[in-house]
């Protein structure tokens, strides 16, 4: 059976954050909602300093705290490994957000249409886009997906609900790779069926020593890291993005 997962090669990641932007354009997430985030951090003191980068998508845990705590089953685990959010069921209690140790959940603090990067309703923009919000609005995001046929794709769908990385379910179900993976200039992100030993993801995973983030919490993430090194308590984030709604 297909069980999707992502392998992130920290030896390749240049910390460019293209994945973050690709995610936003594909999924139309509102301002400040960074489903994909790339940590840049340093350790040590001058001159013995190391700089490292670490992309952080949703871990799509097999033992996901967010799924466990969701009071209404809006957050659920799919058989193919994806952890999805039914934005039509979410009540916006943000329990998933406080339960998740990875900080991958984002609440729509205001009307998403009012917190997009460009206002499609602006007369100038509307004259060339027909008033789509955002002007690059992706039409694939409104369809139901999965065997459950629930609405789980994309961001900026509704005010007052929580959304997060979907592994680009709308692309994956169409046989394509998640936007971040496609865009990554150095192929640091590999996506695929981790149950299939021949998949690119499995092969990359086999190629090097690997770790998962906060594995000690028992969340069993489906995102594996190879190469590089995990952040430690000494890691200081540099160039942190602190986006404002």
């Amino acid at each position, binding site marked *: 059976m297909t069980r999707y997962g992502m392998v992130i090669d920290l030896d390749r990641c240049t910390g460019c954050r293209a994945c973050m932007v690709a995610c936003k354009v594909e999924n139309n997430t509102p301002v400040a909602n960074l489903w994909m985030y790339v940590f840049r951090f340093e350790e040590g003191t001058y001159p013995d300093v190391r700089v490292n*980068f670490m992309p952080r998508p949703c871990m799509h845990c097999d033992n996901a705290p967010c799924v466990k705590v969701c009071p209404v089953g809006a957050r659920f685990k799919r058989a193919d490994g994806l952890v999805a959010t039914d934005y039509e069921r979410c009540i916006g209690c943000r329990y998933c957000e406080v339960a998740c140790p990875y900080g991958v959940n984002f609440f729509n603090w205001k009307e998403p249409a009012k917190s997009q990067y460009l206002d499609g309703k602006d007369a100038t923009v509307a004259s060339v886009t027909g008033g789509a919000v955002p002007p690059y609005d992706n039409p694939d995001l409104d369809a139901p997906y999965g065997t459950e046929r629930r609405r789980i794709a994309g961001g900026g769908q509704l005010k007052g609900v929580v959304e997060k990385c979907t592994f680009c379910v709308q692309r994956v179900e169409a046989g394509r790779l998640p936007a971040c993976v496609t865009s990554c200039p150095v192929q640091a992100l590999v996506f695929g069926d981790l149950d299939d030993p021949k998949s690119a993801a499995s092969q990359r995973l086999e190629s090097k020593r690997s770790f998962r983030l906060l594995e000690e919490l028992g969340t069993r993430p489906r995102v594996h890291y190879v190469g590089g090194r995990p952040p430690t308590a000494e890691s200081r984030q540099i160039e942190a993005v602190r986006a404002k709604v």
Partner: protein
Amino acid sequence: MSSIRLGRRTLLKAAGASGGAVAAAGLAGDPLATLVRAEVPAAVPTDELVPTLCWIGKQDCGILARKVNGRVVSLWGNPAHPRNNGTLCPKGVGQITALYDPHRLRSPLVRTNAKGVAGEWRPAGWDEALGMIAARITDVRARDKRLLIWQKGRSKAEAIYDTAFVNAIGATKIGHGAYCSDAGYRAAEYTLGPQGVLHPDFRNTRYVLAWGWNVTNAGGNKLCWITWPQQLAAARERGLRVVAIDPRLRGAGSFADEWVPIRPGTDLALALGFSHVLVKDGTIDKEYLTRYTNAPFLVKADGTFLRASGKEQVWDKARGAPAAFDAAADPMLEGQYVSGGEAVRPAYQAFADHLASYAPEAVATITGVPAEQIARIARELAANAEIGSTKLVDGLRLPYRPVSAMAYHMSQQELGFQALRAMIGVFMLLGAVEAVGGVRVDATYNVHGNFKALDEVKIKDPPYDPLLRASRYFPINSVSPSVLARTMLDPGRYGVDHVPEVLILHMANPLLAFGSQRLMKDGYAKFKFVAVIDPWLSETADLIADVVLPAATMEKYEGPVGATDFYTNATALRTPIMQPLFGSRGEVDIYLDLAEKAGVLFGAGGFLDELNKALGLKAPYVLDTSARPEVRDLFDRWAKSQGLAEGIAKFEKEGVWVRGAYPAKTYYGYAHTPPFDGIRHRLYGESLLRYQRDMRAKGADEAYWRDYTPLPTWRRPTMDGSPPDYDLTLISFKLIEFKQSRTSFFPLVGELAPRQRLEINPRTARAKGIADGDDVWVESHHALTGQTQRVKVQARLVEGIRPDVVGMPHHYGTWTHPLAKGQGPAAAELFFGGEGYITNTADQSFQVKVRVTKA
């Protein structure tokens, strides 16, 4: 990708189905009409990928725009494009917000207030605006063509703009290069022949000096960003070792195996320190030096070569006497000889003698790099170079020297030209120039005309042109806008006899790019008429433009541009993803308009005639010089002249034309016949000494001639003369999120790096009572004039920077775009242009002494 139909066939089909009239109109009239959303019947939803090119950076990555019912919804990398292989950097993806930015210019603008202050504008029609510019062009052309300057930002269609248009109107062309890395270009052209700076043969190298290489943020030699990191990542998986030589670690990121935090402006000394060790250890490639460089040329006591009947002489060991370099059987590299009663020594010996004062211990005090580290890295270079080894490539046995450097922006310092010469020298000693795995300069080995030209500069007496070319000030001249600004302010001082009057500014924003905004503003304000072509109202336009023309971004035909990843031979062309938005026009259209209105479109020497030459159009595709072509047709003719039977359709369908891998035979200079096309690389720059003598003879100050030395010679940079309370050296750097001043207001990338900052080591910050996030004053000091400039900026504490260095990214300080409000000042406000802060080749330095105090 597979599920989406590639190309515009679908769309054309849909348009065809919508009615023959529309299709016919499309064929007969504006070819872009077929791309308009309105032509697509609403009932037929289309979902297609339309190829184009990124227009932000210099490498013009291939893009496939996903269009749904005519609306572009996302931009993806074009997998067929060798430079980005289906990927994009954050700017590339995020520019979709630039495409639809409502703050783009929406019509030509005409200034209604005085220049020098924020512009007030009235919208004008294209006809009127073009007419105003054309009238000015016509006017100055009639009086003196030298009064017309055309300045560009990036090369996007050199044949069309830089060559054909500039030739047709007779303008003087200046670029941004003197601000970027032209000093490095000049050093490579002069020393090795090809045009470019230094980069590794990544597929084969094992040891790289990432010398000031901001690998995770700024690309490298000739390419913008994606290609080099891709090649680096792959090379590291093969075991490549990276030594990052940079005051700031962040640029190399996690790719640095070793960090050498060097004192800014001292790279020249470090390179000579490496050379010292190589020479002392004798780990040099004698064969390369002897056969392919001027190292065996005999240098007389006065520093010039010993010549006989016009030919440089070498010491022939067999004969024990001088012989012409091309006649000697066994030229010596070392030794002191006497010829005709005159002491002579081979240039190599002169270099070795010169290096005596650059022992690692001495270099350590200059550079702040420990002596043992200098010696160790030099020896690692030597060990990895495997001097004498060869490798079979494409059936050719070529020298194998897998040590290299990426040194693109290294030249942005006062000693830039000579620092690059010194660095090239290290790899010349190792024989790694153009060897397999060694350092390279261009995609393929081609000796640029400057190899000869820069060796034969004739320094004139005044009057000089405003750029001071062939002058006693900057005989090797990179055409610097900040020099132009200075001569415009004070032409008499430089013996300049004419001050340009009309400036056409093409996608450039010199007020933000060059050192000292004040100097640039004051100098450029002397232009009597300035026309700006830009998608946005640039800061330069805001202050000094008279007329602004809105340019399209990705919605235009433009090119052709190179698409090589330095291993593949490929060409690309920007094709429009839709009609130009918001009333803008593609630049090719604009120049056709301008040329027509200025009366230089038709006939011999006209724009069309020049286009025929510049684009290499061949019969039957040569343009009729009496009829204005459509832009698409122009490129169709070019493509067909290039031998592409399908013409422009190839690019409209695939975006790029990949011709295949470069064979080793054209790729490596060594593999050429004769090797290096028969030239000898210049370890010893004899002509530099000649220029020095001429400059002195013509009364130039020492400041101008002192760096014209045949061998790179260290001196303390001018900035070191600032008082000791200016205790820190400011450097600027680039961020991956932005490209120069033109992207910080793209909402999607602006969010990632929303404001200017000063990076400072915590140790330094603590001593000054500065905490992370504090506002600080950064005040720079001009060591010669005592002038100071200061800005307020937020401090960011990072361990990965030398404690005596502070850094600021180079992208902020724009003010005309609402989204740039509050981002903070431009780093350029702190640097200085002009003497003391530019190289001997008139290239800008981005280093200055500053003091930092808590605000």
